[in-house]
């Protein structure tokens, strides 16, 4: 709870900083020109842009948090995203190939199989997750490049309805609410325009993963396993099977994320599509309270964590901070967040020991 409140506080603080920064820029430059102040950051269009990205990266972070809770890590997420999108683009072949109803279940099965492969190696052959998934990081991207012959793939103009999943909003379903060009839109239309499909899909998966992790016995066992595998095994938990399951779900969700990314971007270059996305996912999960040592973490925190990172990325652009400095801002903010968390944790612990 403390974690979640802290993250919400951090996001609000960031928004305020951005707001005043913009105000300051206006005060310095445009005030005398008679321009009224309006915040670009806290504007509807900006949130409309921001939400789909939070949804897309949030799905990857959810996948990552499952692996992290078991005490492992999945470094192959970015490459799985790439492989899944490349294969589906090739099979669908701009609408002239196989049916999407056949292709998408097929590639998601492939994503699941990748998870089975990881899980088997990790839990039954006792190879470290870092190593297994690192090899995946190299291999899957290379496979993708091989299948695509290093050419850029895409869906072209095909599958407009499927693409809605990656870039659409609720408003697309209700054309009658859409403003006539030039006219102003109603509040309801604006709100529906904010609810973007990837965000909803992310929330859907967040609920499922959340129910699984926090309410089902298997989820509780997963935490126990992450905290101390040995004692979990001795208390009768099927640790191996459970770990396998975690990696399967992880890769499966990453595969879904990959499809959504392909729908959104519609231009998949095998050599760099999804590069570094696993690290954004790790950063989001860690910011959200997952310990890389395993055994802790919660879904709401992870979503807030990834939202914070996406807000930062967006801020850099909106405030006109030089592109070169972007990762300084992101890296710095993550570090500040994690350090602050540690500080408050220690203080509350000290207080508790003093009271006791």
């Amino acid at each position, binding site marked *: 709870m403390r974690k979640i409140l802290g993250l919400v506080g951090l996001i609000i603080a960031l928004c305020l900083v951005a707001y005043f920064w913009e105000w300051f820029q206006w005060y310095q430059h445009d005030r005398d020109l008679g321009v009224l102040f309006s915040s*670009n950051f806290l*504007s509807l*269009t*900006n949130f409309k*842009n921001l939400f789909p*990205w939070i949804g*897309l990266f949030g799905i990857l972070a959810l996948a990552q948090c499952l692996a992290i809770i078991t005490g492992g890590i999945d470094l192959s997420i970015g490459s799985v995203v790439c492989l899944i999108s490349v294969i589906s683009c090739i099979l669908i072949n701009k609408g002239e190939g196989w049916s999407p109803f056949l292709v998408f279940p097929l590639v998601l099965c492939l994503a699941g199989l990748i998870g089975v492969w990881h899980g088997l190696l990790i839990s039954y052959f006792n190879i470290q997750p870092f190593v297994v998934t690192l090899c995946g990081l190299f291999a899957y*991207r*290379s496979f993708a*490049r091989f299948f695509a*012959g*290093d*050419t*850029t793939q*895409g869906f*072209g*103009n095909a599958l407009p309805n499927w693409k809605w999943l990656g*870039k659409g909003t609720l408003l697309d379903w209700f054309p009658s609410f859409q403003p006539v060009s030039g006219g102003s839109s109603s509040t309801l239309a604006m709100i529906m325009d904010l609810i973007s499909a990837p965000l909803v899909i992310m929330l859907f998966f967040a609920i499922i993963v959340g129910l699984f992790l926090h309410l089902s016995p298997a989820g509780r066992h997963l935490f126990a396993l992450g905290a101390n595998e040995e004692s979990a095994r001795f208390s009768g938990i099927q640790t191996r099977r459970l770990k396998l399951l975690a990696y399967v779900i992880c890769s499966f969700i990453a595969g879904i994320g990959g499809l959504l*990314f392909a729908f*959104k*971007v*519609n*231009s*998949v*270059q*095998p*050599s*760099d*599509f999804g*590069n*570094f996305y696993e690290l954004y996912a790790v950063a989001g999960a860690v910011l959200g309270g997952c310990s890389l040592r395993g055994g802790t973490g919660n879904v709401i925190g992870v979503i807030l964590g990834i939202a914070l990172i996406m807000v930062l*990325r*967006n801020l850099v*652009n*909106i405030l*006109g901070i030089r*592109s*070169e400095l972007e990762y300084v801002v992101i890296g710095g903010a993550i570090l500040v967040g994690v350090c602050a968390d540690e500080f408050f944790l220690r203080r509350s612990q000290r207080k508790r020991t003093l009271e006791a």
Partner: protein
Amino acid sequence: MFRYFVNLLCVTFLAGGLLISLGCGGKQQETSVSSTPESTQQSVPATSKKIKVAFITNNASDFWKIAEAGTKKAAQDFGVEVIFRIPSSGTAEQQQQILQDLITLGVAGVAISPKDPENQTEMLNEAAKKVNLITQDSDAPNSLRKCYIGTNNFDAGVEAGKLIQACTPPGSKIIICVGTLDAQNARDRLEGLKKQIASTNHQIIDTRTDETDRAKAIANVQDALVRYPDVACFVGLWSYNGPAILNGVRDSGKLGQVKIVCFDEEEETLQGIKDGYIYGTVVQRPFEFGYQSVRVLKELAEGNASSIPENKQIFIPTLSVTKENVDAFWSELKQILGKS
């Protein structure tokens, strides 16, 4: 018993590996001793075997697919063997590895598109001592390369500037989108563009980089449209920036309100020009890069340097593609790439 066998196996593998690595080391030393005089190695043409030349790109993209088609055509026309290498991560150190491996393979010449020319000069010079080295696409003027084949990116930037002037009124605000600004071609294009638009007071209000992440390239455009509602034109300096800008503008619902000028010939870019959402694109001729590189390398391998001009730069002119000539250009391109 089992453990004993495992140990034995490990020892054998280790010993074998050691022997092999020693053997290779010895061989390498031998060749480096024998190849000290540069000229001797070059003047030995492979009479029985085909001349082997290599082509190294800086990353993977459709652009290089076209160049590859050019090298294949040249390989047929001139009867040489071409090795085409694409560094997967597109980093300077991977290029170095590939270059070293190719030299070990015994190629007569290498055409490379250096990722980071200034810092790679030493590596290029090292290679130039052993084989005929030319640069293509991106130049390293301070190195010992035999010549450069490619676009004059400054001139390409000037052409893009002309396109901007043709589609926006004087004094308009423009935004530049590019992968990274540390590549020489990006800098040269930007300089040429700036010089051309200076005369009409067009202003560059921002430059956003995306580190070649396409998703981010789109987000950059969306964010720029929020921050600068009065922007008149986006310019994408690298090939994927064109489609990314188009997607970003489309997602923001501003298709047709903002002009787009970009470089290179991605399919989506050409479609965008056909649809009228992109004003124009400045294309290089990668096919010619590939073809001419192989031709020059073959001539160099035969000791003939006559086609290299005094300034050691062979420029292949760019082409501006707009709605008028997009159909003709596209069908020619499809023919080269062998797509229907």
